[in-house]
């Protein structure tokens, strides 16, 4: 279910937190769906159970998941809130990318054209519901 990059410089618990958030935001994990137990995930990924526990605690603190005594951890039903955090992150990286593009000589007109093209493609691919 999760793939971790053990060679990454990023701490394993951080990778786990990000992975779960991503899966919640993209709807791969549905509200009230149960997350794998610390024990089974530890065996599956060969990751220290304390690290997984820590990642779950962090996710709970940020409101992505909730836990029931003796039952396990579940995805929170209020996913609207996490999406906002995601938006901020994307906004930041977009600004950074635009700066980089402008340094490397792309003009405003070219970027606008790219933006329009990309938007057109997305609208064609994703049917409105």
């Amino acid at each position, binding site marked *: 279910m999760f793939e971790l990059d053990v060679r990454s410089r990023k701490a394993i618990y951080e990778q786990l937190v990000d992975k779960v958030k991503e899966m919640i935001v993209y709807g791969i994990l549905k509200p009230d769906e149960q997350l794998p137990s610390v024990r089974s995930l530890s065996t599956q990924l060969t*990751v*220290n159970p304390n690290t997984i526990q820590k990642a779950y605690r962090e996710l709970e603190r940020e409101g992505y998941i909730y836990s029931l005594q003796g039952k396990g951890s579940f995805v929170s039903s209020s996913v609207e809130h996490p999406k906002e955090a995601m938006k901020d992150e994307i906004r930041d990286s977009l600004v950074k990318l635009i700066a980089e593009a402008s340094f490397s000589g792309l003009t405003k007109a070219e970027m606008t054209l790219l933006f329009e093209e990309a938007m057109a493609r997305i609208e064609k691919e994703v049917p409105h519901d």
Partner: protein
Amino acid sequence: MIELNQVIKAFEQEKAVNGISMHIHKGSIYGLLGSNGAGKTSLLKIIAGIYRQDSGTVRIKGAEIYENLELKGRTIFMADAPYFFPQSSITHMAQFYRSVYPQWSDERFNQLASVFKLDVKRKLHRMSKGMRRQAAVWLGLSCMPEVLLMDEPIDGLDPVMRQQIKNLLFQEAAERQVTIIISSHNLREIEDLCDHVAIMHKGQIIVQKDLDDLKADTHKIQVAFRHPNHADSLKEQVHILHEEKRGSVTLYIVKGHREDVTSQFRLHDPYLLDVLPLTLEEIFIYEMEGAGYDIQPIIL
């Protein structure tokens, strides 16, 4: 679970362990790192109750371990070179362990047979180093310990077995809340295995921390300033462990909160600013450098 307070142990003039205090939680997997001869093995032997400390206290579940049979029956120490009786096989050794460790479980022993595919009748001295290591882990885990002390446990194991043994240790920690202390030079292994680490040097502990905090707390920063003055004013603001100039780009190893450090650097609006987390190996090297043990550019 395990509490050490100002522990000192000297062999003749040499203080192998020089005033170590540490606290290890139940169910934690604790990594002990250090330079060669730092005193890791001595420390493990003190915690195992093999050596008696000259001063200070060592308490496991609130009791002193030295000459404490009850506690020692729940503690396993795996030496860096596993010892078996001459001419013995795994079956012989299992009989011996069964007679010594009251918690020994035949059920567990048989269960583990599916992991370690070793011939229990074969003489241990005719097995390879890695196979003997597997036998030691097999016997050790069958004793159902509450405290597991392992000196260089991954040494000599093939990648499949390493992964297997790691998985076993994780299960021990998760299901039975076993407290595990591992000493190693292999920082990559420790990084995946442990939740807490301590770095030892000359009988003392330089750093001990939650591994993730340690990694979140030290950063590698590459920066190109607009003006050389900027570098000087920065030195007063942030805690710099290491500095290295490579042309117009300077490499800093900085301690502190990521946001704080980054904003300090950003104040000067540098041409280039890259902040990277460190690997455990890098942390080890820079902490050691701070303790006066560094890599010399030697050409012989």
